[in-house]
């Protein structure tokens, strides 16, 4: 037993002397849990607003009320206008809101048409444009929209039933039927239904009554849904997710490869190579080119696999896909080289690499739409390679974007690469790898 205790003690002594192991055991999981909690914890229930394009063409009070309700709810941030080319703020029209959804500015819009609710309407008519590039986001917006409308408009339900009875039974019998129902409800449930029966739907009541049921909802609020992007995509789910997963694995591959510099240093191979007519510049260039080409090949193989197995269309926009692959590989290689320049041992590289890749993947939208994350996290999303790469892949594969639509992704990724590379070279020159 004493021997076991001594060995047990030895392991703890070694563990506490290894700062990297301690960091990986305690600090990294705590930081990751915090970040994942921030990313996933607020979805649909946090204080953050979901962006929703909005046009109200109706003059009906119910439409005004709906706009006011959506304006004040915490769930949505209505986007009603945009800046035109001259910098003027312009209210959206239907065509422009469609254009902005197609270009990925936001994923959904609600249109209240002129004839949304007239004197003879049995239901409220709405139009919902959407781009399901992030299916979860679209479903969430759709669901939250329905919930908001039903929570705020219980009288819609009542009024709809009253009008339906009068249509089916005639005005007189329908009126009698409605009165009988109201009396029965009043008798057994002590609810004064006359208030609702006599209420004009276009009045501005704030009565709250929660109700549900999808079929019922459809009869009361008629939402015409139009998918603007991705209708022809053969496998939407795979097309949406392939970029994110590909990026995460690419980062793992390239980080491992870049940090092989440290293995070569440790094994003495670096001394042998540098004693030949080879300079550190030669080594850095060769490593950079190798990692970049490896990244390009890996991404191609993954997309080709996606094409063969999941029928992802990679050929109809191949040129632009190649450009994004090139930019993503360049940026990932820069990240790998940066890591190699900052750490001292292969073990540190593995620890930091795993931590940063998981964090970038979570925050950058590899697993989950960035638009559903808190605004504070979304700020950091835009600092990651994963975000710009995933958005680039989505633009090319989902929206079939051309060069003019993807140049900003390319510019950001190449820009990040240049900045990181310059810093890495500075660190390599002063570090102890060479």
């Amino acid at each position, binding site marked *: 037993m004493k021997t076991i205790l001594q060995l047990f003690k030895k392991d703890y002594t070694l563990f506490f002397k290894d700062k990297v192991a301690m960091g990986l055991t305690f600090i990294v999981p705590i930081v990751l849990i915090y970040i994942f909690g921030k990313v996933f914890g607020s979805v649909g229930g946090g204080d953050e607003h979901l962006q929703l394009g909005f046009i109200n063409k109706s003059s009906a009070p119910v439409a005004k009320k709906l706009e006011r309700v959506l304006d004040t709810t915490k769930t949505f941030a209505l986007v009603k206008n945009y800046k035109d080319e001259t910098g003027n703020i312009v209210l959206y029209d239907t065509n422009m809101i469609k254009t902005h959804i197609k270009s990925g500015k936001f994923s959904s819009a609600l249109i209240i048409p002129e004839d949304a609710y007239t004197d003879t309407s049995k239901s409220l008519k709405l139009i919902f444009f959407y781009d399901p590039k992030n299916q979860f986001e679209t479903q969430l917006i759709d669901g939250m929209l329905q919930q908001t409308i039903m929570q705020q408009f219980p009288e819609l339900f009542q009024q709809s039933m009253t009008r339906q009875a009068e249509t089916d039974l005639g005005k007189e019998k329908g009126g009698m039927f409605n009165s009988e129902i109201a009396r029965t409800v009043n008798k057994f449930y002590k609810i004064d239904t006359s208030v609702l029966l006599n209420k004009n739907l276009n009045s501005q009541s704030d009565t709250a009554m929660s109700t549900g049921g999808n079929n019922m909802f459809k009869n009361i609020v008629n939402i015409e849904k139009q998918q603007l992007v991705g209708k022809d995509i053969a496998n939407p789910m795979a097309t949406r997710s392939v970029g994110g997963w590909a990026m995460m694995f690419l980062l793992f591959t390239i980080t491992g490869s870049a940090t092989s510099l440290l293995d070569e240093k440790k*094994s*003495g*191979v670096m*001394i*042998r*190579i*540098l*004693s*030949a*007519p*080879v*300079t550190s510049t030669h080594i850095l260039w060769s490593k950079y080119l190798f990692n970049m080409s490896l990244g390009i090949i890996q991404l191609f193989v993954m997309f080709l696999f996606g094409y063969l197995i999941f029928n992802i269309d990679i050929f109809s926009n191949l040129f632009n896909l190649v450009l994004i692959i090139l930019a993503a590989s360049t940026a990932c290689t820069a990240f790998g080289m940066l890591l190699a320049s900052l750490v001292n041992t292969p073990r540190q590289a593995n620890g930091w690499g795993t931590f940063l890749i998981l964090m970038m993947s979570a925050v950058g939208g590899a697993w989950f739409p960035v638009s559903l994350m808190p605004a504070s996290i979304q700020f950091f999303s835009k600092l990651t390679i994963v975000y710009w790469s995933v958005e680039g892949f989505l633009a090319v594969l989902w929206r079939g974007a051309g060069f003019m639509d993807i140049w900003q992704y390319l510019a950001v990724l190449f820009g990040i690469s240049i900045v990181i590379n310059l810093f890495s070279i500075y660190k390599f020159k002063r570090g102890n790898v060479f």
Partner: protein
Amino acid sequence: MIQIKNITKRYKNITALDDVSLEIKSGEFFGLLGPNGAGKSTLMSLLSGYLDADEGTITFKDSIISRDSMKVRKKFGLAPQSLALYEDISAEANLKIFGSMYLMNKDILKAAIEEKLYTAGLFERKKDIVKTFSGGMKRRLNLVAALLHSPKVLLCDEPTVGVDPQSRNAIFDYLQKINKEENITVIYTTHYMEEAERLCKRIAIIDMGKIIAQGTKDELLNLLPYKEEIFIGKNEKTKSVLDSLGKFGEIIEHAEQYEVKLQGDFKLSDVFKLFEDSGIGYNNIDFRKPTLEELFLNLTGRRLRD
């Protein structure tokens, strides 16, 4: 051929080499003997051009060796102290990689690989993965990798670390062979004085970044104040002759022996006569030549392996 002039190299606050000067001749088997941390590997790194000195110059046939001197560096081959090999690929694949660093013609490289592997006794194992090799075989492969481009100078940084005596002999034979037959200058670092004595024509003893002595083995041993030592087992008879022995040199008493460091002018026959007259048998007497270990002890007060 190689001139090292007033070289100083520092790592932050540590001075690894302090005003070191040496001259190594063409075709020489030159030894650099010193304990761990003496500065041997740093000097090898400077000679190979892997590091630059803070002060002083190193020249090879009047050309300065530095990190930027690509042409001169081709004349050198470095076998680093660590096994600088890719363990998961074959011996041949390793050599192809390292040979290609010198931009060798493909056919010439292939021929060089076969020839050097044959000379090193590794030809039969050329397709085998390096991690399946014994320690001695890896060490030999480490040397072969440094010789592919036919360098004029081979830098061997402690090439026998972790090697069994049999493999060590194979490495010695190999190095002596290439030194003699190919006229390659060998600069050999070690902390084993036996290796330096056995292999090297000239030896520099280095300690704490300074060259404390250099020359042939005999020249170095001449630096000692005594030429021979006699060890005599302790007993009543030997005790009785201690006073008489004292005139031949300094006597040091050990647990079971007396050590006499013979100094000054005398005839060795006088010593033997003394033993004979005192009835001390030769089986109780051990004559020894001093070694470089004793020279190091004499110069520094420490042993080589301290």
